[in-house]
């Protein structure tokens, strides 16, 4: 043999069929290119497997002189392939969300944030790659909260609690539930359209939207289940209601979709769910509306947080938000808006009886709900920097379908 090895490793009885390469690899890692490692061992196949393994990894093997005693099998001369593989490698930004890249490059693609990326690989196109457009500092905390508060539809709702409602009240519940299911469907589809476009560098936002979609999935389940708890038929779905939801799903701009869905739509929905929680005629309806309301509040918080952040940086954002409200209003101006059956059902639930005074009281409460929704929208618009009078005007243009 030529020069003396600088390192040695004894594999004992361990063969390459059971992981001996790990010990060899570990010993080679500490050597420079051309560094020499004496490998000893007693596995009978070692003399065949060691050179075969080295060959595939670009290491050279030198054989000991005949007559050298002991378990020495060969000397491995470290090749350059292991180093070459990592030539030009880069970190995919900082691992922690406190030091995010403002515009992560496409080549980071699906690499884990902060990972050491081998050069090459596909340039994945995630077009929502501007931190200011998608990020909110609250996202990691909101995600943690959302993940901690996931509930099990089977155990979180008293499905078996006994109750019996008059047929017309039950029909009103079924109608409202039908309406809620179609709204929740839209609320699931909207983030789903964006989640695959957001650069994974902003993974907490992706995670948060994923949980948001899981929330909506549960809402769809529990509202459907309540609708069919006592019967086999769902309520009605109006063409205008579906048209209103379709304009939400069709919005392809992330900021505008968040604005229409979370700030205006889900914001109003929180008020609606609170109303239903108060006026629910049975324990199941009361519980599912309360559970869904908690989730929807989180969705509104995130939508507000990232739009507030963006509005501070981009003074033109408000123009776009304003235009989006007008555009949606124009698209819906010839539609009926809220399904009349839904409105009537809400009055029935709030009335709690069929005496004219009950109905009158129910009607007042639904009007108060609409007023509360309007006030809430105005407050959120003001937080996004709109003047109070303009906020009032814009809120009035919001779809009559609530969402």
């Amino acid at each position, binding site marked *: 043999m030529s020069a003396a090895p600088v390192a040695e490793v004894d594999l004992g009885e361990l063969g*390459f*069929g059971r992981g001996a390469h790990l010990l060899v690899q570990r010993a080679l890692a500490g050597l420079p290119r051309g560094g020499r490692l004496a490998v000893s061992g007693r596995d009978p196949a070692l*003399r*065949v*497997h060691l*050179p075969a*393994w080295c060959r595939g990894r*670009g290491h050279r093997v030198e054989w000991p002189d005949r007559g050298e005693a002991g378990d020495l099998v060969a000397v491995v001369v470290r*090749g350059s392939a292991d180093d070459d593989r990592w030539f030009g490698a880069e970190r995919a930004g900082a691992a922690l969300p406190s030091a995010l890249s403002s515009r992560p490059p496409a080549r980071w693609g699906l690499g884990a944030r902060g990972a050491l990326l081998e050069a090459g690989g596909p340039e994945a196109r995630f077009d929502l790659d501007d931190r200011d457009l998608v990020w909110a500092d609250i996202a990691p905390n909101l995600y943690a909260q959302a993940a901690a508060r996931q509930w099990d539809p089977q155990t979180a709702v008293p499905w078996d609690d006994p109750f019996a409602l008059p047929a017309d009240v039950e029909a009103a519940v079924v109608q409202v539930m039908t309406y809620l299911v179609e709204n929740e469907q839209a609320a699931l589809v909207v983030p789903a359209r964006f989640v695959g476009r957001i650069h994974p560098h902003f993974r907490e936002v992706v995670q948060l939207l994923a949980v948001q979609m899981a929330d909506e999935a549960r809402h769809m389940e529990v509202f459907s289940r309540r609708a069919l708890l006592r019967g086999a038929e769902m309520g009605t779905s109006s063409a205008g209601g579906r048209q209103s939801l379709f304009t939400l799903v069709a919005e392809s701009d992330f900021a505008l979709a968040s604005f229409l869905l979370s700030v205006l739509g889900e914001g109003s929905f929180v008020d609606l769910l609170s109303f239903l929680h108060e006026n629910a005629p049975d324990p199941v309806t009361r519980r599912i509306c309360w559970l869904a309301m908690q989730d929807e509040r989180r969705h509104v918080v995130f939508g507000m947080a990232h739009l507030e952040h963006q509005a501070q940086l981009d003074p033109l954002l408000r123009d776009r938000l304003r235009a989006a409200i007008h555009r949606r209003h124009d698209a819906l101006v010839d539609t009926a808006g809220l399904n009349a059956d839904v409105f009537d059902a809400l009055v029935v639930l709030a009335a709690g009886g069929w005496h004219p005074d009950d109905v009158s009281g129910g009607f007042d409460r639904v009007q108060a709900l609409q007023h509360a929704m309007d006030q809430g929208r105005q407050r959120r618009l003001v937080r996004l920097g709109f003047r109070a009078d303009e906020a009032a005007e814009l809120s009035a243009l919001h779809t009559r379908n609530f969402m």
Partner: protein
Amino acid sequence: MLAPTVLMGAVAYDPKVVTIWEGFRTWLRGRGLDFDFVLYSHYERQVEDLVAGRIDAAWNSPLAWLRAERLAAAHGTSVRALTMRDTDQDLTSVVVVRADSPVGQLAGLAGRVVAVGALDSPQATLIPLGHLAAAGVTVDVRRFDVGVGLHGDHIGGERDAARALVAGEVDAACMIDANHLAFVQEGTLPPEGTRIVAQTARYDHCNMTVRAPESDGVRLFGTLLLGMSYADPQVRPLLDLEGLTAWREGRTTGYDALADAVDASGFYSPDGRVTATDYRP
């Protein structure tokens, strides 16, 4: 001035051959070589086309190299090995028995059933059988003809031979050293379930065969291949697919054992004709 050209032949033993050579073609064209390739369904036609001048280079198995050398000589010309992979040098084949086999040494295999790969596999058939014959051991050969014409590039025959060994259908099986390791690691062979009773001398495998004298294009081709770096992210995935970390200068010193086996078995005649009786690629 027109760019120098090279038309290379490669055998399509696996769909990845297209990925590899399309990738290399892009890389080579980007460096001033007008390179293209044609795919063959087996090595024999590729060798004939190389010697006849229809292609400029052939990515050849060791067996195809031997035939090219003989055919060229018969035509009064010559070929040479331009480059080879680092992983083509210093391979060995092994003869393996089950761990509980009464066979302790090579001589113990006399009269027993030995599984080999396809008829035209250098590493799993011709070289190990030549090794047995040289040791004076006569065995009953059970052949696993998968991918005949691909000169053993298809791993199927070797794997089937290994499976037959585990199943107790044969007394021993022949395979290349790296496949013995691969079969143990993938579970085709149980980790401590086999014992190596013989290992051949070291030999070489594939090479990029070209006609002599080389054209400018072929010379540039050789220079460019040798310049490919594993540090280059454009070619590294292709090098991984092709199973090398670097191209080396071609050498022809590692084909003697195979040449002896070819002569002993009558696979090719000295002038490069296919003479193996049951060989239909």
